[in-house]
């Protein structure tokens, strides 16, 4: 947009055309007070707080040139009435006065009016101290009240709008920010207005009330204390809080947040601005779901099993025992008899040291970050290989961008992506949502593609075929192989055949292919449902990204929604049986989690170290294996089912109690800082690994790092397992001597990662602390309004986006297709483990969200229900080849026939008992009581 020059209070400066007067004045450092206006939402001009005097240069009617006065200055025609700054776009030569007597009278008047219905109960109000109404009244308002308190309107208070948010109607100034946020940004139209005039009021109109995953944000943008969270209600005054910057590890988005602490207690969690990640928002899971940090059931001391019970022990005792036992197993049976699982929510430093401990100290490759359940699926390498490029910032994207969301439910898997993708669409991007069922994001899509159950691969192939037909292959600039095989495979079927198999009209496929091909930036996001279709689908999606030219550059590529907050970090840093950090493939692979349980049961694996995962909760195999194993160490926050079966339980520090870095779905590495001292005697995970490694190093001779000598091969990531064809033979040089185990702080670990893991080069704590250019939200005029008095300001670093692996030139992309997975099971229905934000995550304990946890249910389609004469609430049983499961049925009108959906991860509903693999065929039976 061209710039225009405006004059605000006598100062002239340039701003982009089309900016509104409030924002434009702010760019010049001049504050115009606002209540209803919010820069993230369209202006409505309701509160009338931003009234300013606006004048335009008078034009000569004949020449259309500005008239000049005697001094050569343009003649300014002031508008007869004051204008609301938020709804007035600037234009060339505009003159804006914000300090004239008339303007000040109007501002004071509006504030006085607002205060006539406001109780001024600041001392008991949670917003007090970070309240725009307070701040603006101090600066622009009248000093004296002319309105008697007893004449004010009184309402019962507080009115719960839902479990989480409380409304104080007396304080509400009816700016409608919350209603507009829910309608326009969150797409949950759950708030509305009722009555009119002075009785106008906010009501919750959904059932259950305020059913939104973003409800907490309304309390941030509320310019008064009308909306407060039940989580923070009367906990503390805001000026007593100290904000400790953290990263949310509850989903792969990696939102920046602040742990607001009073002394050593967590009072609340607030979003921290990061334009590239979460803007200024935070989902309710991140905001309210961190109460586990202070939960009373946290482990506080190491425990050692004595017969049937645990006895508290000192760290010295516990660690010595662990080291001795592991050393014994190692020397008796070798490293392959030891296995380790680490949760994908641990930090990069933890994960890196965990794999070092296993590979270098114990000589074991039996490493994984999966649970070892039947539906684990393959490791997702393509999301790293073809990841969105360095410099990606979804905030900058709009028109010219095409986003394809394939087999994902972002609202549940990574809630904040919903807000970000919707914002992208509002800025003009095209959003295509392909799924077999209705998801919330679909409502915001430019085009929704509902493929038939099991038709995803056909759809992906149809898209690839369309691109190949258009000669996209000639434009691939990357090192690649297998193109001919791919061509042969997809051309084997006609577009019509593929479209029919996908259940999608050919025109829609063409439209999507065109959009991807013509897009300046193309993003492909895929989630759990796509991953459950196996690598064949993911690789076809990868081919789609490559063929449409949307890889290896900023703002283009693939985003994989993986479970946990740091799955990408675990993959990058080699907590997997087949590759070292940086996707360096190993010739000798260890056991993946899925094979671990049988190996342990059969006595091949004798010792297990499980950090942060709870396989025993839901996997009968794991329970057997843990019973059979000689020695089990569990490193946990809580006494989980797995911990109960351990020989040694080590208390770990939570995310808020230690420093660490985390890699999000877009491969942005971000640093989280310690907000409080570790609970009890708990220690950071990396420190525990290091302590044991040190002891082991003293105790035993290092197993020779045999793997090194053979020369590591860089993994061709996705296709690693198949062949070596087309692989780059580059050998990664590394220091001959492995580093010693003497890290004092995690930043030393991070520095070593930066040095030794190629794509993490430069990711040091210093570099992570850079905040880049202050955005629109940096500290400046009007900050009280935009920050709501609360600082979302990010002074602690916005993280570093890693380059996609393909752009490093070390890898060759294999395009050769994989056959579709063959399902032999003849059962009629496909079981879908539905990932849910409020599923059975044990970290939600102690939070208000516990009340909203999903209820066990078997969700079936209307037509399947009719066929079997099942009503809502009937008890039904699903039977697979390996087991059966029963729960209450919920009939879902929008679910396609042939699909059964069961919430994943609920403690009361163990899906893994009946799963046969990533995809399970089941039959449905009504239980007759």
């Amino acid at each position, binding site marked *: 947009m061209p710039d225009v020059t405006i004059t605000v209070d006598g100062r002239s400066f340039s701003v982009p055309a089309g900016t509104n007067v409030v924002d434009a004045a702010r760019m010049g450092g001049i504050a115009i007070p606002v209540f209803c206006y919010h820069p993230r939402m369209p202006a409505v001009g309701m509160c009338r707080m931003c009234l300013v005097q606006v004048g335009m240069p008078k034009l000569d009617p004949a020449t259309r040139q500005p008239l000049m006065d005697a001094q050569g200055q343009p003649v300014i025609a002031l508008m007869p009435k004051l204008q609301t700054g938020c709804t007035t776009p600037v234009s060339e030569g505009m003159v804006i006065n914000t300090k004239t007597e008339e303007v000040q009278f109007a501002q004071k008047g509006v504030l006085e009016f607002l205060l006539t219905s406001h109780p001024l109960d600041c001392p008991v109000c949670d917003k007090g101290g970070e309240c725009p109404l307070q701040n603006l009244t101090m600066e622009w308002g009248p000093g004296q009240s002319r309105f008697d*308190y007893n004449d004010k309107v009184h309402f019962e208070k507080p009115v719960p709008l839902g479990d989480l948010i409380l409304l104080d109607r007396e304080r509400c100034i009816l700016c409608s920010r919350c209603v507009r946020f829910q309608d326009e940004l969150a797409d949950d139209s759950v708030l509305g207005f009722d009555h009119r005039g002075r009785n106008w009021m906010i009501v919750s109109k959904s059932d259950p009330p305020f059913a939104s995953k973003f409800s907490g944000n309304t309390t941030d943008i509320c310019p008064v204390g009308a909306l407060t969270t039940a989580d923070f209600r009367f906990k503390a005054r805001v000026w007593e809080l100290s904000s400790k910057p953290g990263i949310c590890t509850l989903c792969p988005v990696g939102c920046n947040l602040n742990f607001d602490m009073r002394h050593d207690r967590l009072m609340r969690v607030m979003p921290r601005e990061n334009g590239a990640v979460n803007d200024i928002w935070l989902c309710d899971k991140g905001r309210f779901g961190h109460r586990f940090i202070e939960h009373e059931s946290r482990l506080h001391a190491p425990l050692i099993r004595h017969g049937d019970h645990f006895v508290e022990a000192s760290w010295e005792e516990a660690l010595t025992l662990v080291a001795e036992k592991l050393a014994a197993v190692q020397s008796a049976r070798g490293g392959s008899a030891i296995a380790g699982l680490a949760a994908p929510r641990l930090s990069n430093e933890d994960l890196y040291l965990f794999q070092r401990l296993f590979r270098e100290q114990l000589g074991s490759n039996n490493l994984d970050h999966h649970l070892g359940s039947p539906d684990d699926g393959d490791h997702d390498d393509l999301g790293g290989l073809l990841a969105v490029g360095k410099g990606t910032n979804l905030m900058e994207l709009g028109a010219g961008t095409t986003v394809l969301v394939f087999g994902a439910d972002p609202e549940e898997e990574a809630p904040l992506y919903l807000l970000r993708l919707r914002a992208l669409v509002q800025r003009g991007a095209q959003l295509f949502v392909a799924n077999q069922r209705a998801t919330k994001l679909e409502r915001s899509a430019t085009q929704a593609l509902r493929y038939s159950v099991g038709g995803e691969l056909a759809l992906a192939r149809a898209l690839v075929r369309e691109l190949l037909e258009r000669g996209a292959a000639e434009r691939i600039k990357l090192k690649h192989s297998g193109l001919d095989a791919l061509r042969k495979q997809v051309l084997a079927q006609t577009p019509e055949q593929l479209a029919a198999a996908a259940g999608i009209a050919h025109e829609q496929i063409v439209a999507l292919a065109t959009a991807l091909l013509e897009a300046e930036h193309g993003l492909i996001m895929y989630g759990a449902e796509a991953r459950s279709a196996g690598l064949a689908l993911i690789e076809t999606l990868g081919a789609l990204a490559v063929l449409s030219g949307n890889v290896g550059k900023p703002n283009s590529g693939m985003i994989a929604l993986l479970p946990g907050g740091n799955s990408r970090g675990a993959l990058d840093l080699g907590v997997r049986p087949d590759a070292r950090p940086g996707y360096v493939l190993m010739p000798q692979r260890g056991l993946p989690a899925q094979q671990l349980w049988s190996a342990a049961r059969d006595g091949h694996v004798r010792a297990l170290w499980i950090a942060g995962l709870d396989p025993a909760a839901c996997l009968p195999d794991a329970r057997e294996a843990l019973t059979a194993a000689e020695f089990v160490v569990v490193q946990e926050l809580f006494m989980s089912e797995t911990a109960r079966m351990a020989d040694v339980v080590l208390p770990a520090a939570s995310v808020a109690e230690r420093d660490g870095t985390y890699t999000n779905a877009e491969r942005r590495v971000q640093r989280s800082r310690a907000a409080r001292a570790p609970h009890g005697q708990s220690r950071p995970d990396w420190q525990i690994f290091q302590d044991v490694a040190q002891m082991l190093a003293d105790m035993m001779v290092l197993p020779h790092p045999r793997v090194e000598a053979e020369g590591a091969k860089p993994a061709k990531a996705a296709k690693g397992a198949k062949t070596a064809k087309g692989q780059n033979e580059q050998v990664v040089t590394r220091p001959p001597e492995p580093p010693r185990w003497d890290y004092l702080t995690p930043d030393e670990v991070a520095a070593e990662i930066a040095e030794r893991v190629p794509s993490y080069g430069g990711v040091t704590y210093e570099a992570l602390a850079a905040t880049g250019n202050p955005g629109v939200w940096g500290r400046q005029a009007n900050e009280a309004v935009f920050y709501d008095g609360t600082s979302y300001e990010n002074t602690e670093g916005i993280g570093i986006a890693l380059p996609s692996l393909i752009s490093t030139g070390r890898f060759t992309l294999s395009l050769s297709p994989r056959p579709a997975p063959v399902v032999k099971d003849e059962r009629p229905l496909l079981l879908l483990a539905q990932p849910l934000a409020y599923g059975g995550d044990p970290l939600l304990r102690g939070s208000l969200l516990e009340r909203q946890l999903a209820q066990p249910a078997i969700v079936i389609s209307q037509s399947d229900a009719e066929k079997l004469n099942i009503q809502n609430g009937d008890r039904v049983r699903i039977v697979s080849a390996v087991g059966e499961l029963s729960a209450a049925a919920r009939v879902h009108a929008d679910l396609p026939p042939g699909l059964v959906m069961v919430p994943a991860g609920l403690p009361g509903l163990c899906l893994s008992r009946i799963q046969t693999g990533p995809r399970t065929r089941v039959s449905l039976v009504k239980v007759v009581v």
Partner: protein
Amino acid sequence: MFGELVKGLRTTLKYMFRQPVTVQYPEVKRPVRERFRGRHELKRFADGSERCIGCSLCAAACPADAILVIPAENEPDNPRSPGERYAATYEINMLRCIFCGYCEDACPTNAIVLEHQYELSFYDRRASIFTKEMLLVPEDQGHGEPPPVLKQIERRPSPPAQIDL
């Protein structure tokens, strides 16, 4: 020489029959001025409810950081103070307190008042922390009416949430 002796004795004799300036503390205690700032008290309203609403403004005003307030929400059926909020914990560290009276100034409900008790000495530091129970005046010694903003006057029941599905 003798003259000086007499002179000195006269002074001695004169003061022998005067009221002594010193008092026999602790048997005798000298009254303090009305505005003397001694140990704090947490006052009550006439109806016996606590004046303190747990707003923490005293702690914010305190230059010595001697006050700790942890607020909580009143049970609607059994409120401790008028309004929604009360102080669940209220502690003053008398060793830190400098008796400046800023807390009094900051208090919106006149709950905290520096009274005349000045005998504040402790055998250990922990004893210098005065808890809410120690600071609160007895229930029958309240005064004044709660301000209207804290009274649930004329509260209109809010209509239930509308559900339009």
